[in-house]
């Protein structure tokens, strides 16, 4: 109880936003590469990532632990039980989410925008600009979705972060640890904050979605 809920919240926002931002960048680049594939191959890549979305975060946490513990292949980095370890783990949690939410649009928009531009008799050089405009809201909502997945996960943060007070304690680990020592009241307060954050994100995603429809 030594740590204030505020500092836990700030830490949680930092860690998850960095992790999901990295995942988002990777997903964008991946989407660009994959959108050059034929439709069948692209579908296969997409289904692969869709299946990864369902992998329990504890499994990802365990895998990252095996990677980072002192005897593991990356043990020399000595970043186990630091915020960086959580960022790495949450990167892998957020990546499939970011990719699956953006890639389908990438693929379908590429062709349809081009057809639209050409059928309106516009020069082909307008395609990228229009494409960017079409993609922006999708990218934003994809980022927010992967962020909410990262901030709400427990498995990675608990296994490779450890929930160290004042260092790697994030919202979800605080809930888990306070619950495990019977301090349910405190855990519920943190839970409420987590709920507020995810609700805010859902609304943001909705608003961005509306923007796509009504623009």
């Amino acid at each position, binding site marked *: 109880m030594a740590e204030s809920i505020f500092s836990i919240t700030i830490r949680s926002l930092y860690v998850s936003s960095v992790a999901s931002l990295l995942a988002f960048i990777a997903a*964008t680049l991946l989407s660009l590469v994959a959108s050059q594939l034929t439709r069948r191959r692209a579908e296969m890549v997409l289904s692969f990532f869709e299946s990864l979305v369902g992998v329990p975060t504890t499994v990802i946490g365990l895998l990252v632990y095996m990677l980072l513990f002192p*005897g593991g292949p990356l043990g020399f980095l000595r970043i186990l039980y630091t915020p960086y370890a959580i960022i790495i783990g949450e990167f892998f949690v957020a990546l499939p989410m970011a990719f699956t939410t953006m890639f389908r649009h990438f693929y379908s928009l590429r062709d349809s925008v081009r057809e639209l531009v050409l059928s309106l008799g516009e020069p082909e050089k307008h*395609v990228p600009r229009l*494409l960017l405009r079409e993609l922006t809201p999708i990218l934003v909502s994809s980022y927010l979705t992967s962020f909410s997945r990262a901030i709400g996960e427990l498995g990675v943060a608990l296994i490779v972060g450890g929930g*160290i007070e004042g260092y790697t304690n994030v919202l979800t680990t605080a809930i888990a640890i306070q619950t*495990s020592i019977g301090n349910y009241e405190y855990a519920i307060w943190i839970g409420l904050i987590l709920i507020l954050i995810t609700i805010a994100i859902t609304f943001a995603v909705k608003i961005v979605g509306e923007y796509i429809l009504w623009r």
Partner: protein
Amino acid sequence: MKKELLYTAFIIAVVIAGIAGYYIGRYYSEKPVETPQQNSIVVATTTSLYQIGILNDFFNNFNNLTHMNIKFNVLAKGSGEALRLLADGSACIGFVHAPSLELQYMNQGKIMRLAIFGYNEFVIVGPSSDPANVKNASDSVDAFKRIYEAGEKGLAKFVSRGDQSGTNVRELQIWSLAKLSPEGKPWYLKSGQGMAQTLLMADNLNAYTLTDIGSYLNLASQGKLKNIVILKRDPLYLINVYSMYLSKASSCDNPYTWYVALKLSNYILNGGQDLLLAKYKGLVNPVRGNESLIEQAWNALTRLG
């Protein structure tokens, strides 16, 4: 067309990378990168010591006394997991209470004992109506036999930690002393959770469970346990010994860690004992004055079951 698409994508990527860079830069500048081993040490501990608040007091007093200003990064886990983390070298110092597991890891040469520093007792708690008549049992083994019989008749339930924690290990030892196997019985429930959650579960289900007395009193004093009371104590089989360990893994094998660990154990065996006596009497008792007795008890516990 493809070139233009890639070109746009490149610009997007650069912009995003810029934002990310700024973000990460801010993150780093607010929290300067510290080499983890320089002034911080990872400590794995059994949840009960963390819950009662003993460890924080130990560390604060230690830092005040020695002016070393070491940051102890505390991981609150069950004893089984804590010992595994020590063996891996993920944590360097450990506080645990599972003698038979400790011996196993010591025999494998993975950990080294620094101190046996405290003890309390496990107690059998259960519904105050006591359907298994545990109160009149001759000892804990007899009590477990009675719970088993009552369980088979559908009168009682038992909640087990089921997580290889110190408490769970002891519970399994008592079952094997009673030559009974409750595994898979419908009245034998495994919570797989910490002691506090297990106690609350037992409280809600009117079930029996084995707990260290510290966790029980901590929760009971907050008024969180309505139905279950202490039913059976047993000084022979239910003594609970807390020890401190140092990992022998190569990641902990440096003079700094050893120095801190030895200083810390030295503190806990001296000043720390006064603290236990003054503030935590009954929750965790100091070993001072009874060292050889407690060590004998520890040895006996490793041979149980």
